[in-house]
């Protein structure tokens, strides 16, 4: 770690010169395994669930392939924790350090992140411990079954939504407010929802956050590395995931068109939807070689409108079909509606999904989708 201390101080000073501001960053030198662990669970000390196990396997397998391995990890906490992989080369870790300061600046300044819970590590630890005590008290299987159901509905969180009426249209908030749950069950649902909101925020700002961090990284490195190293860095940038490149290209475009101050402003006030909506142009779509691909007739649509729509759609419901709760007719009524009626849901998943909701709601659950009404009650699934 000591070999990096001087350069970390240098990068930090340079970042401040650029006009960035951030909370302290604590770097940790670690191995691929811990990185895979944190990446699969999202947080280093989260409660244990089988779902992370599958992700861990996947990431662990990818770590061996150099191109897809995760080079860095940073947590939105105060102070920020960042992980450096021991097996990275010095130059790679230098990139990571510079990149991390980009994230730290984003965490501290972006409008949405400023409001986020910077104490998530303690919260997650507390949740994990409480869940464990529940397991002892109520039985492991009971708690695990409940967690499965909670995590299934947790994709419906929206960290941006503040209006209670509109939040109540999303399944998880509705259940939290009205489901006939015992105290410990409600605690679990609430805990899962809180953690899901932490990740939801990250997901809704992924493009802008990574784009900004990459942009800052290159600004800082230009001052720090030799010409030969610079060539290496810029070629490695191109093999980053597409999201990084989209965000980075947009920030480059912003600075070129409106200057550095505008770039700072965008990183403060924007999130992914607004960034894509306002800044993506036809020319950039061509430059990034982005298109909407239709596997049915194998056609590409390179029109900026279509690409934008696709990106924004991904962000609004995170790739999941948009499901809303219909106004209830009675206290035990729960009817879900698939908003995009034209598209068909995978029928195999419907029964399993509704069973999860039923586990929490404990009264008949209805879903209007695929031109039918699916009902799940204690007898199982029926269709009408």
């Amino acid at each position: 770690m000591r070999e990096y201390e001087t350069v970390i101080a240098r990068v930090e000073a340079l970042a401040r010169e650029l006009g960035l501001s951030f909370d302290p960053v604590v770097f940790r030198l670690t191995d691929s395994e811990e990185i895979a662990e944190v990446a699969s669970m999202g947080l280093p000390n989260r409660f244990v669930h089988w779902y992370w196990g599958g992700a861990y396997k996947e990431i662990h397998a990818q770590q061996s392939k150099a191109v897809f391995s995760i080079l860095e990890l940073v947590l939105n906490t105060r102070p920020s924790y960042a992980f450096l992989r021991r097996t990275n080369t010095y130059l790679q870790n230098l990139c990571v350090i510079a990149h991390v300061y980009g994230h730290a600046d984003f965490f501290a300044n972006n409008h949405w992140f400023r409001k986020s819970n910077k104490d998530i590590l303690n919260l997650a630890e507390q949740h994990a411990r409480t869940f464990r005590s529940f397991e002892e008290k109520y039985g492991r299987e009971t708690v695990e079954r409940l967690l499965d159901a909670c995590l299934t509905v947790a994709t419906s969180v929206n960290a941006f939504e503040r209006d209670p009426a509109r939040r109540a249209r999303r399944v998880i908030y509705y259940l939290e407010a009205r489901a006939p749950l015992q105290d410990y069950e409600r605690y679990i649902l609430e805990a899962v929802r809180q953690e899901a909101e932490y990740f939801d925020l990250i997901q809704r700002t992924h493009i802008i956050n990574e784009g900004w961090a990459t942009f800052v990284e290159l600004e800082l490195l230009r001052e720090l590395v030799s010409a030969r190293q610079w060539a290496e860095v810029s070629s490695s940038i191109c093999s980053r995931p597409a999201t990084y490149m989209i965000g980075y290209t947009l920030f480059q475009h912003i600075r070129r068109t409106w200057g550095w101050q505008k770039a700072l402003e965008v990183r403060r006030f924007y999130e992914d939807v607004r960034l894509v909506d306002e800044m993506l142009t036809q020319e950039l779509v061509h430059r990034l070689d982005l298109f909407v691909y239709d596997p049915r007739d194998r056609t590409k649509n390179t029109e900026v409108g279509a690409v934008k729509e696709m990106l924004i759609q991904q962000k609004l419901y995170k790739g999941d079909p948009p499901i809303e709760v219909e106004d209830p007719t009675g206290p035990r009524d729960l009817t879900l509606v698939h908003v995009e009626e034209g598209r068909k849901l995978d029928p195999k998943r419907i029964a399993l999904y509704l069973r999860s909701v039923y586990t929490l709601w404990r009264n008949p659950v209805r879903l209007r989708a695929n031109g039918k009404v699916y009902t799940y009650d204690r007898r199982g699934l029926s269709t009408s």
Partner: protein
Amino acid sequence: MRIHRARIAEHKHDHLLREYLKQNLHELIQQKELVIDGKVKTQITTLDLPTLRYGEEERFLAQGAGQAQSTGGQGGEEVYAVGGLLGGDHHGKELRVELDFEEFVRLAQEVLLEELQLPALHHVSRGGEVETEDLPELDDLDRWGLAADLNLEETMVTSLLRNIRERGVAEYDVDLRLDGWYFVEDPAADRNHRSLEIYVLDISGSMRGDYLALVRKMIFLLWYALERRYPTNLRRYVVFQDVAEEKTRDEFFSVESSGGTHISSGLEKAMELLEGVSEYDKYLFLFTDGETSSGDFELAKRRFEEALERFDVVSYGHVNPGGRGIGGFSEYVQELSRRRPNLSFVNLVDLDSIRQALREFIPYLNGEGGTARCGSTRRSSRGWRRSPGSWA
């Protein structure tokens, strides 16, 4: 000490996955191509939370191969889905679940043993046995007898020098063919297998779906029983329809069913494989629906008689998941099995008949457990067939 939460999670995940695979074993085992590159691939990607998804093939955001302006082309060129749009703890589910074939077999055996309520068998002790894949060090010439105090290179060089010195010709008078210097049997190839199992499978048109599932389940259980007895057994695989072919294990579990049925060809191939075999026990397992082509019937009978002479145990599984009557060649074998002690016939209808088959096929399961010395099976097997057994 650091607690590896992700490893605990992985363990939980794998436990659930095994449960899932167990529940779906019957479907999995029917896959025509069961083994691909030594792995069993399943339809499931990995366990998932049952969130809702779109059903049909949907449009997605993609990126070209990196060349800007490569648009305009229709399909054919490279299209990469833009993944990871969400970051955070959102993971793409791209990893298909693959199991090593051995792992799959173990899993299947677990399920089947449980289903048939068969007890677990013990491994026989392998004390004093030497088995190696490595070539032994070539430090003497005849590795079977006493170490000969001879060295080929040295002898050749000395002979060469002598001939140059005495006769003025650069020749050596060592006859490599006659002296047989290095040409002793390679001990690495002479593993002590104890048993040779030849699996002969009918892959004519009718053998698929439930037929395959039944045969494979049967084979997995046979393996289980035989491995406890012969940990170093040698297995060879033959498939036949009109003609017979020897297959590797993986190919054997990935055959296309097609063509007519010539049982004689399968038996001929199996007997070819007996050349130079010196194992204690030679097992032949033949699985077919018995509907051999009419022209083949007489020849198949003759070959079958011959096989009965040459194998220690011949086991005939009449694959019959529909539970119909037994006719054709199978009827003949069933009849014959009443007279021939080293032939067992089983009508494979369902799992229960597999239990029956195991008792018929592998006599030592019937009472003796895993205690007998190897090699004794050959002589005593005849008497055991009808005794009540531990796998009954």
